[in-house]
């Protein structure tokens, strides 16, 4: 049974591109029924509309957003009874703007950290209107990815994993994880559909959290 209210809510702020200002938002600790309803009623139709545009523009399918098959209800159903899986959502203007699920059972691969516990990000996705790879409209809100990575790091610290996190990036997002998050690129993973695997060690995690705090 999917919960109807999040276990906790952290205040956060997103950048609204149209006015170049930050707006109030919330980081929900736990994806709940409202988030899934937003995904079904708003994300999917909007994604389909954008896919139509890409198709009309004859953009090759291999450049379409790879997460278009993701079924968040299925993902949540799969992990809802597992204590080692957690989920988060960002909500602004009463709409779900991004979602993430994490797994606490995975181990680090980075040389020097092999076998250490980390928070592994199973899935992370922004709403279609917050993405840059979809058709002609600019992303509506910025900052969702960084806030979710920040949350994963803080959860890692809470679990005693010292901020270590890992993930497999979708090809369109490699630049975000390599450059904006400064995660270590451990190369393509043949066991994960050739996605690139990235990890953040404790020092880099601390630096990510501290970066921009007082600027």
């Amino acid at each position, binding site marked *: 049974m999917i919960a109807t209210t999040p276990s906790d809510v952290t205040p956060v702020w997103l950048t609204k591109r149209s006015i170049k200002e930050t707006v109030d938002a919330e980081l929900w600790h736990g994806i709940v029924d409202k988030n899934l309803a937003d995904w079904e009623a708003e994300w999917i139709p909007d994604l389909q509309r954008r896919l139509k545009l890409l198709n009309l523009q004859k953009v090759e399918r291999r450049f379409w957003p790879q*997460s278009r098959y993701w079924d968040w209800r299925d993902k949540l159903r799969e992990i809802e009874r597992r204590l080692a899986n957690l989920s988060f959502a960002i909500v602004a203007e009463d709409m779900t703007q991004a979602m993430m699920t994490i797994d606490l059972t995975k181990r680090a691969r980075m040389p020097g950290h092999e076998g250490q516990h980390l928070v592994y990000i199973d899935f992370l996705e922004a709403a279609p209107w917050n993405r840059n790879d979809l058709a002609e409209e600019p992303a509506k809100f910025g900052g969702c990815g960084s806030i979710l990575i920040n949350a994963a790091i803080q959860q890692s610290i809470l679990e005693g994993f010292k901020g270590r996190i890992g993930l*497999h990036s979708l090809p369109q997002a490699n630049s975000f994880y390599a450059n904006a998050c400064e995660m270590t690129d451990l190369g393509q993973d043949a066991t994960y*559909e050739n996605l690139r695997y990235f990890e953040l060690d404790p020092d880099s995690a601390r630096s990510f959290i501290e970066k921009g705090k007082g600027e």
Partner: protein
Amino acid sequence: MTFDISKTWCRNAGAREDGLDIGAGVIAADPMFTHEGGADESPEASRLALGRFINLMRRDQGLSIEALADKADIEIGELLSLENNAAHLPDVRTLYQLSEVFGVSQEKLMGLSGLTHANDDDDDYVEEAVRYAAKSASVEVLTEDEHEILNGLISVLSENAKHK
């Protein structure tokens, strides 16, 4: 337990993230790539021509990278990569915005970038654009010759250009 994430941090993070996509996770259905995401399969020559065209147009209009990025409402980093990195695969929106600013065909810019494949009957423009771009040399000021080359590129990339 809630987390500590300040407004300043969020604002700076939002700026750093500008123009970047963030998806992570296994696809698990219809994986259509076994490479870095497609960019390496597109012809580098045509993407070099695209970068050269944008560079010439920008300089012809007396615009800095920053000014063009502002005018086209695209990221500075994206524009820099487009002009200088033949491996960079631009966003559809970026090409749309640039086609609007430069008054050329979005479809043809997408063909040059490798995002779309030109039809067999209509793919001369890619070859022609590459040929024009190959004639230009990187210099600080746009010369008369470059003006001529640029005019050639504009005519090749215009909506109504006819190709043999």
